[in-house]
């Protein structure tokens, strides 16, 4: 996978994870173009599109678009499943996740993503294992929260 973007129906970017090194300007440009292209698609259209010699797989969950850019030889359907798996993970962790959860706890969302995908490939596909690892990491974080009194929703 080359990169993964999450954005809302209005085109606001919620999460972005890049697995290829690119300059900031490039990233912004790509994001803008891709967001426009995906938002322009009608609901019944196919989930895959070709864009700039990359394949883009996207799926819409409620008000969020999950968008992944994969290389030519990667399997598109399995990428759809990766997206779904990630959503399931988020759901399990946050309990019935909605966009607000991701907005306010975006660092957790990134942690979960990192446990799941590494360097653009799926690292661990078992839900239990990933969630266990996150829990362990959370335990390490607890004392810090008490110190700094950051509210956790």
């Amino acid at each position, binding site marked *: 996978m080359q990169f993964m973007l999450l954005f809302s129906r209005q085109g606001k970017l919620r999460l972005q994870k890049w*697995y290829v*090194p690119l300059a900031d300007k490039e990233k912004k440009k790509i994001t803008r173009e891709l967001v426009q292209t995906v938002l322009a698609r*009608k609901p*019944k*259209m*196919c*989930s*895959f*599109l*070709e864009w700039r*010699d990359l394949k883009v797989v996207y799926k819409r969950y409620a008000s969020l678009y999950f968008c992944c850019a994969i290389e*030519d*030889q990667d*399997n*598109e*359907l*399995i990428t*759809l*499943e*990766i997206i*779904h*798996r990630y959503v399931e993970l988020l759901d399990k962790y946050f309990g019935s996740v909605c966009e607000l959860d991701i907005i306010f706890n975006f660092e957790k969302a990134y942690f979960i993503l*990192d446990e799941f995908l*590494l*360097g*653009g*490939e*799926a*690292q*661990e*596909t*078992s*839900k*239990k*294992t990933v969630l266990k*690892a996150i829990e362990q990491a959370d335990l390490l974080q607890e004392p810090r929260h008490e110190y700094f009194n950051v509210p956790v929703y």
Partner: protein
Amino acid sequence: MCLALHCIANVGSREMAEAFAGEIPRILVAGDTMDSVKQSAALCLLRLYKASPDLVLMGEWTSRVVHLLNDQHMGVVTAAISLITCLSSKNPDEFKTCVSLAVSRLSRIVSSASTDLQDYTYYFVPAPWLSCKLLRLLQCYPPPEDGAVKGRLVECLETILNKAQEPPKSKKVQHSNAKNAILFEAISLIIHYDSEPNLLVRACNQLGQFLQHRETNLRYLALESMCTLASSEFSHEAVKTHIETVINALKTERDVSVRQRAADLLYAMCDRSNAKQIVAEMLSYLETADYSIREEMVLKVAILAEKYAVDYSWYVDTILNLIRIAGDYVSEEVWYRVIQIVINRDDVQGYAAKTVFEALQAPACHENMVKVGGYILGEFGNLIAGDPRSSPLVQFNLLHSKFHLCSVPTRALLLSAYIKFINLFPETKATIQEVLRSDSQIRNSDVELQQRAVEYLKLSSIASTDVLATVLEEMPPFPERESSILAKLKKKKGPGAVSVELEDGKERGELNGAGERGADAAIAASNVSTPSPSADLLGLRSAAPISGSTPSAGSLLVDVFSEAGPTASSASVNDDGFLSSAPPSAASEDPAPPLPESEELLNKFVCKNNGVLFENQLLQIGIKSEYRQNLGRMYLFYGNKTSVQFTKPVEPLVEGGAQVQQVINIECLTDFVDAPLLNIKFRYGGALQNISLKLPVTINKFFQPTEMAAADFFQRWKQLSQPQQEAQKIFKATHGMDTEVLKAKLLGLGTALLENVDPNPENYVCAGVIQTKAQQVGCLLRLEPNAQAQMYRLTLRSSKDTVSQRVCDLLAEQF
């Protein structure tokens, strides 16, 4: 630890790689690292490898890494596989052992019950990601040779295909997505192997079912997979059966990307039987197509029309239609090509002129049409001038009416057309001269137009009709070149254009077949149209064949990469003796002595014409040769087996992994004993390599088989009864004495095998005539095998003693 690895992976810069490249493999394979750490380490290593492959040396860790495939923990396996896949694609040989491991893992997963894998079962599909990755890994390798492994793999694939037919276990879309993901991956593996016809057909049928599925995603993927399937020979027929569905999809799909895929598939599955239908469909689609894809479609239609045009008037029609429908997107190459074709083919010129004339009469005429029209009428307007509706003046007025609407280059072309008119139709001279003389031409602000107007005006007024006729003579046929349209399409599609690439090889063969004039009479057009690129020995792209014949008088050493570049040279093969004529390039170094294997290689080629001549670590040389009477043509394919390019003292270079072709024309002047030497010099990685081989041209190549009755044979046999005309050899059989094999060899020699001539049915009798420029030598042959003693007696009689001796020697080696 994990976080650290994450950090390294995400940054993945070169410095990080330098620092950690040694550490990480150790962490990966050590027994005591936690599983989660192992996972992270594997992917981290992958990232570093992708960033800087030279720094991550896998030498000692290779076998351990492969063994990770057998790990208990699925997560580790998942991560490790990504690593192994990447490494395998770069060094397939080192990681060969992983194939059997992968197959066994895959079969275990595929056949496992749903309770086995617990947490890794995703909506009733066991470990989908792992399965997909395993299948992807297997695609890096050719099909396994080991019978057991191969059997298990085929079983796996069949199970996967079977599962697709079963009713789904769950209504959820995730279940079907996961199941289908594995299915598609399996299908790409089957396509990649391309060796099991029944699997291919099943895959094709499965895809056919998907073509009409409710879900758009599946339709899209099915169309895409079919594209690759269409190029495999086994399944091409099966793919064609779905043409109706695809055409329907093209017309009715609402999603533009699916329509595009359908168009691609039509392009891939096009062949002679359905060409007209497909081109018609594509043209109608073009009228409503998205603007972004029009240019590509135009190129494709042009290529298809040209390739499968049985009747060239259809081709002209199609192209003119193309211009009419999508004129803006018709690039230069397309109409250059149509003009080339029209000029090269006499029969279609009149038709083209008429059609173009009618097309120009339409009120809204695209500029490209005017260009094509102007050119064709200028060249061939005389063919339709007889008809009063298209008399010269009418033609001129028609063209001139469009004049003001056109851009500068078109106007320039029209001015040229006008001067051609003056030549063809003297009665229009006055009118045209008026036009040329008018201020808007000779004082035109554009320099090109002004120049043309002035020059043409002067030319028409001063030159006599003869001079004019010579200057404006009809355009000679174009030499065949690589189709620039293809080059343009490839550039547009980029490296991912699988279907176009494969067509490419066949395409060039076809193009060369079409209308090559001026070729040597002896080497008939049929020889030229042999699609030599399709005999791609290394399965790589071949450069356009460079043919020409610059005879270099009597030099036995054919200096291949000499100063003149890879131009073909015709080696005149002379009778014994390395003539001391000056070698073509003075700057070349001394050729190396012929390699010891060359004698053996030469023997290999006595009875056959095609094969691999020479192979070493760096280079593979294959040949294909054809002979006709006393002339021969040999195609040499030089394949670069390394990933580094070869350079020579002068250009061109052979890119890593690429193949270059060279054509050599051979003429036999008189009989000869020694074979010509081929000396190859090139630079690989800074070192100069020097290889000398004998070109497998032996006297028997110029055999012309002659059928004759028994009586004739014996008569001639008696005529050649002088001792020096006969050569006889008794020798032990080195190969088996199988009848069919012997017959094949004798036929491969070039002689005609005569039946029922020899009273002993075990014996073989052959006759042929050796064609040389100086003379023709009749040759009769008798081979008597003795099965009990495993020996042969070979008798040869011909009118020239050296010939008898030589052929006898050559043949003795073969048996």
